[in-house]
């Protein structure tokens, strides 16, 4: 292994610019003649906009224009679509009304944009937005997903009972039969709390129309600029694809929330032609809270059936998933194909039946958020398995091992075909690292200090490397989920990699360069990664679903294969040898069995001068592209164990210890992987202990700022013990599975299992704030006293 190749702990190349303030984010981009947009947003969760009077706004000095939904309608700018078709049990297609970029008719959540004011300055635009007189007819709101289907309030005429779909997966009859033969059945009702993604950089857009070329440029905070361009062209009618350039420069975190096309970027682009000036908009944190797609929000009832030895026979799940006011771009697939397909967990479960009802409520739209569906599945499976083991009096580690899938490939009853894994290996290693045997002693020692100590397991699995195009197409996806790459070798031997992946915190500039360094034997400083610009990269599907390693890097690897093959041909001519005798190693081509050699930069130069090979046989130049469509999902899995100490007087939980043993297949850069795991655990601990969106019954967001919405901070977390086990992924040549979401997927059940272990009963909701835990601990104490 070279010190910059695959497997090396290379410090992130991009961090120099990020930590010295030299990064270039969308809001850092300024163009001559720029104006500013301010959006007037609905203050009501559910209201018909009767009129928008812009007279006073237009009179504000510096205000240039005001646009409303009617202006979009006139220009046939379409609503934001749902990108994944789901069919209900009865075969009917989902009810997925579009989301107009400015309200047309009704506003359906607090924050829904009603009008935009364009001003010479931000202050003018905001003053204009305030001066708009918007007349509302306010309706009752429904915010609770559990009440949406029976509510008298109807959000959309086209979605009776506020229902998008009633979907099912698995074999209902076989599952019912499994329950009939069961010796023990464990039941669980839970809610998976709603979260605000809160990337550090708020969303931003700068739309610019160029009359000379009749084309648009949009700078935007996107995880997938090509998809944004496609949606804006094909569905929204903003501009044809070849007349729209989308650039996503440095992006400060996304966690999923920057996958989707949002009203603001559409409006800034479209309106830049109407006013003949560039238009910039940047969300403030308050806007981020009420406009970035939220995550999770499930209400679930589940039952699991076991035989007398604790062997799982079947699992039955009913989930109501809250989509918010409209179906966001990928929202419909999150609680279905990204959720129910993982309900088998790491376990050999012969029969599974899941039903999911997706509902609309007067809340911010919900879509994929770090983990997307898989944290919800893992939380359910790992909670119910834990409770089942406790109820049956079987040690939770033993119970899990008894039910682990041991032979691969393994076909689950819920679509997924797991290709490789060794679940006992990660569980055993995690038990060793945390000293599971010594837990009883630690618990007694804590009790002497007046603390309740508990231990919680989470053996998670996820489906990453999203995803085989034909497979997702058959499940309703509107797009294919391959990835593209182009390798451009310059005459002097340095290399530009154009990728359809997009880095917004993942460190692609480092890991992708490590792959190239490894393959071509050149330093990583000889490699530039180009991404995030539709004029540079021809097409790509972007970064989410832990796909950029497994899919994006495989595309690069394929293109590198082609570069190497062609370079070999050229080297053969330079060395006057037969191509079959050429070996490529450590950056040099040699003739096997001789000391004749030519370096990669020498071959590169010769590729472009084209003096020494027949250019009728070999084309000059050295540039190759590849598209890679994966043959399967990848299946990262592992075991996290958390130990918690509770102060029963206050309910404060302190995480005393944390072990994570993950199987990500082969690892490109262990340091970056550890960083991803750390961040993921922090987010999962946030969900488990602190974060939770709260709406009042009228649909006002009660947790609209960091004063009320609690984010995890460094002092809430211990030093994590992070380790790996490795079963290489068989479906890509690099053997990698993906690590971006694992921490967020694994951690919430580990925390809640530890708390429930400590307090001695299962009645805990997330976020388990001190108040929640205090109440639960009191119940526990009361029960123990009985």
């Amino acid at each position, binding site marked *: 292994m070279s010190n910059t190749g695959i497997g090396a702990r290379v410090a992130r190349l991009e961090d120099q610019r990020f930590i010295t303030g030299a990064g270039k984010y969308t809001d850092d981009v300024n163009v001559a003649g720029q104006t500013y947009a301010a959006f007037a947003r609905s203050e009501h969760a559910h209201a018909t906009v009767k009129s928008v009077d812009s007279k006073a706004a237009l009179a504000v000095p510096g205000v240039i224009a005001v646009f409303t939904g009617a202006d979009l309608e006139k220009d046939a700018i379409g609503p934001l679509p749902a990108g994944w078709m789901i069919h209900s049990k009865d075969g009917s297609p989902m009810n997925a009304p579009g989301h107009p970029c400015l309200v047309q008719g009704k506003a359906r959540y607090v924050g829904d944009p009603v009008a935009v004011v364009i001003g010479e300055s931000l*202050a003018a635009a905001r003053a204009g937005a305030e001066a708009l007189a918007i007349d509302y007819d306010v309706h009752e709101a429904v915010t609770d997903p559990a009440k949406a289907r029976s509510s008298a309030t109807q959000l959309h005429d086209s979605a009776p009972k506020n229902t998008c779909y009633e979907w099912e997966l698995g074999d209902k009859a076989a599952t019912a039969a499994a329950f009939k033969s069961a010796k023990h059945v464990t039941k669980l009702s839970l809610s998976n709390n709603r979260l605000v993604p809160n990337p550090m950089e708020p969303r931003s857009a700068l739309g610019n129309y160029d009359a000379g070329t009749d084309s648009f440029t949009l700078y935007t905070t996107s995880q997938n600029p090509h998809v944004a361009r496609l949606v804006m062209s094909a569905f929204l009618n903003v501009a044809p694809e070849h007349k729209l350039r989308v650039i996503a420069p440095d992006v400060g975190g996304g966690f999923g929330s920057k996958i989707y096309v949002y009203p603001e970027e559409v409006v800034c682009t479209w309106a830049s032609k109407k006013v003949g000036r560039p238009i910039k908009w940047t969300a403030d944190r308050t806007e981020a809270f009420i406009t970035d797609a939220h995550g999770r929000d499930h209400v679930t009832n589940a039952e699991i059936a076991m035989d007398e030895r604790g062997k799982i026979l079947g699992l039955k799940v009913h989930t109501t998933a809250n989509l918010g006011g409209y179906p966001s771009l990928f929202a419909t697939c999150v609680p279905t194909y990204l959720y129910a397909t993982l309900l088998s967990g790491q376990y050999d479960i012969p029969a599974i039946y899941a039903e999911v009802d997706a509902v609309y409520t007067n809340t911010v739209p919900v879509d994929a958020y770090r983990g997307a569906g898989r944290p919800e599945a893992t939380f359910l499976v790992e909670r119910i398995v834990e409770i089942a083991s406790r109820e049956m009096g079987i040690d939770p580690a033993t119970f899990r091992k008894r039910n682990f899938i041991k032979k691969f490939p393994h076909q689950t009853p819920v679509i997924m075909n797991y290709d490789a894994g060794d679940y006992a290996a990660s569980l055993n290693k995690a038990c060793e690292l945390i000293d599971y045997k010594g837990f009883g002693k630690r618990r007694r020692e804590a009790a002497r200090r007046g603390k309740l100590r508990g231990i919680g397991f989470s053996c998670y699995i996820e489906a990453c490397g999203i995803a085989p195009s034909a497979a997702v197409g058959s499940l309703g996806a509107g797009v294919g989920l391959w990835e593209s790459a182009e390798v451009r070798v310059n005459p002097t031997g340095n290399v530009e990699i154009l990728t359809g992946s997009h880095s917004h915190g993942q460190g692609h500039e480092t890991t992708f360069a490590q792959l190239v360094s490894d393959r071509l034997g050149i330093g990583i400083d000889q490699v530039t990664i180009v991404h995030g610009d539709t004029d540079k990269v021809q097409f790509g599907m972007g970064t989410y679903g832990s796909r950029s390693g497994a899919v994006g890097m495989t595309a690069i690897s394929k293109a590198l294969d082609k570069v190497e093959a062609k370079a070999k041909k050229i080297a053969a001519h330079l060395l006057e040898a037969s191509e079959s005798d050429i070996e490529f190693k450590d950056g040099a081509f040699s003739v096997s069995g001789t000391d004749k050699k030519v370096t990669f930069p020498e071959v590169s130069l010769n590729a472009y001068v084209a003096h020494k090979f027949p250019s009728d046989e070999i084309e000059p130049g050295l540039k190759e592209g590849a598209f890679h469509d994966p043959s399967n999902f990848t299946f990262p899995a592992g075991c996290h164990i958390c130990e918690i100490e509770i102060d029963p007087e206050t309910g404060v939980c302190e995480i005393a210890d944390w072990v994570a043993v993950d199987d990500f297949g082969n690892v490109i850069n262990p340091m970056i992987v550890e960083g991803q795991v750390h961040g993921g655990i922090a987010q999962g601990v946030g969900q488990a202990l*602190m974060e939770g969106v709260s709406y009042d019954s009228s649909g006002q967001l009660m947790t609209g700022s960091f*004063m009320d919405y*609690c*984010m995890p901070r460094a002092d809430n977390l211990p030093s994590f013990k992070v380790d790996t086990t490795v079963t290489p992924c068989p479906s890509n040549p690099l053997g990698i599975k993906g690590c971006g979401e694992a921490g967020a997927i694994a951690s919430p059940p580990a925390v809640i299992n530890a708390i429930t272990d400590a307090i001695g009963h299962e009645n805990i909701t997330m976020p388990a*704030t001190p108040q929640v835990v205090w109440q639960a601990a009191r119940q526990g104490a009361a029960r123990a006293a009985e």
Partner: protein
Amino acid sequence: MYEFAYHRPNSIRKASSLSASGEAKFLAGGQTLLPTMKQRLASPDALIDLAGIEALQGIELKGRTLHIGAMSRHADVASSAVVREAIPALAALAGDIGDPHVRAMGTIGGSIANNDPAADYPAACLGLGATIVTNKRRISADDFFTDMFETALEEGEIITKVLFPLPRRSAYAKFDNPASRYALVGVFVSKRGRDVRVAVTGAGPCVFRVAAMEDALSKRFAAKSLDGISVAAGDLNSDIHASADYRAHLVGVMARRAVAAA
């Protein structure tokens, strides 16, 4: 934020006369006032920055009284050798307000003028029996904090300093609101001669004293003395962060912890 005029007078007299016209506001650390203005919830037409006024600065021990100038930043109080020696609990309280940015800017005068129901300093003022000195008069802490975000200050009145009589024992126990890290419940206890004070912030609409606890502690200053004494949940705040019952319970827990630490 709306437009406003900005003044930086160098004397209390000038500050006072500037405040006489229009909708002016004093600016101290700006940690509360500026965010409110950014959110367009306040729109003063002028800000009178108090940072240039020498007379509002300084920390000094005079006999058995600690004088803290109104413009003393939280970080100054936290790190002051004088405060740490005289009333360590007060230095610790200041050092636990907000985050380093907030402590570098926020001031004692701004904090108590604002009288946020979850702020820490009001508990110290009431719990130590402080006197608030203004450009017009002296106000005892017992009379100063009148209601939620309300004080005895009159229009244009400027806090110049706060006088703390030295206690024999004192401690502050704070239970953080997990999100904002203001006090969900904070209890300041002190003992000076036979005078025992228990002041509670965060729990109710305004900082308050708990007479039953003070009586019990003046008989015997020990955590045990508080067993069985509780505050009525009925008068306490209930919100998404904590029910009144939980707050009432925490008042007891924090009071015992403060006494044990004092």
